[in-house]
């Protein structure tokens, strides 16, 4: 297989993969990650239907790029494709929301600042303890995305960094602040004793 290219579909000098080898590699490395991709896509898009569209497009790109995947860290590779695909799809289909999507990767979030609610801000938690939901929704979207990906969906710091296109250190600092806010909110409302 060729070199890993950070999830970008790029031309390869290597001889093309046979269809059978491509299907086999796809089934082995990609299909087991579909549930995680759906979870992350739901966090990024705010809707189950949009998440399925995004994952479908991501899988098509991954399939085409299988010969450029080096076999290591498939989840991180797919999360990068997912992020790039989501950004492109959003630019094409919902130009009004591109700024909200890009804001998740903004290096300087105004922590604690009030921002108007947008569709991007809708949190992807349907069935929730009410107080937990209120605490999550009270977070800035950038902090919320990191908290949901790491603590709710179980991504590692590095996987979350790939999905959002931010450094691991930024994931850690946003996570720390988000958790601290959550802890204080839940403590104040008696949810944490």
């Amino acid at each position: 297989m060729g070199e890993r290219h950070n999830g970008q579909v790029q031309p390869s000098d290597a001889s093309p993969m046979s269809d059978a080898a491509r299907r086999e590699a796809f089934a082995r490395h990609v299909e087991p990650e579909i549930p995680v991709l759906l979870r992350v896509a739901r966090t990024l898009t705010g809707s189950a239907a949009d998440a399925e569209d995004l994952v479908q497009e991501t899988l098509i790109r991954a399939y085409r790029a299988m010969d450029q995947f080096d076999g290591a860290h498939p989840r991180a590779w797919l999360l990068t494709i997912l992020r790039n695909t989501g950004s492109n799809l959003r630019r094409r289909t919902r130009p009004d929301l591109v700024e909200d999507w890009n804001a998740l990767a903004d290096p300087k979030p105004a922590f604690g600042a009030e921002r108007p609610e947008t569709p991007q801000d809708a949190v992807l938690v349907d069935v929730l303890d009410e107080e937990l939901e209120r605490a999550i929704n009270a977070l800035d979207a950038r902090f919320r995305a990191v908290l949901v990906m790491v603590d709710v969906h179980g991504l590692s710091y590095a996987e979350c960094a790939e999905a959002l296109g931010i450094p691991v250190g930024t994931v850690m600092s946003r996570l720390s602040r988000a958790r601290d806010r959550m802890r204080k909110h839940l403590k104040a409302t008696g949810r944490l004793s």
Partner: protein
Amino acid sequence: MTSNFLMRECRRTARNLQRFLDRDPSAPLSEDDRRRVEAHLKECEKCRTLSEEFQALHSSLSDLGSTLAPSDEAVDRVKAALDRALQAETGQP
């Protein structure tokens, strides 16, 4: 043990607590730092309470994750749509 020393250790523990609890491979604590956090949590009730609160929060959020897992139907729909798209593209079943 002086209160200054304890306060220094509290600050140090607060700085390292998330990494201590998460044990994430991207940001491991050094063995020395890990031992210091462990030792401090044994002797400082305030930091121990903080640690327990973060663990309870993580546990609640993690439980929430299990209720938000995508359904098998959603996974099947995505796979079926992918098959259709690739079939249209390659002309192969």
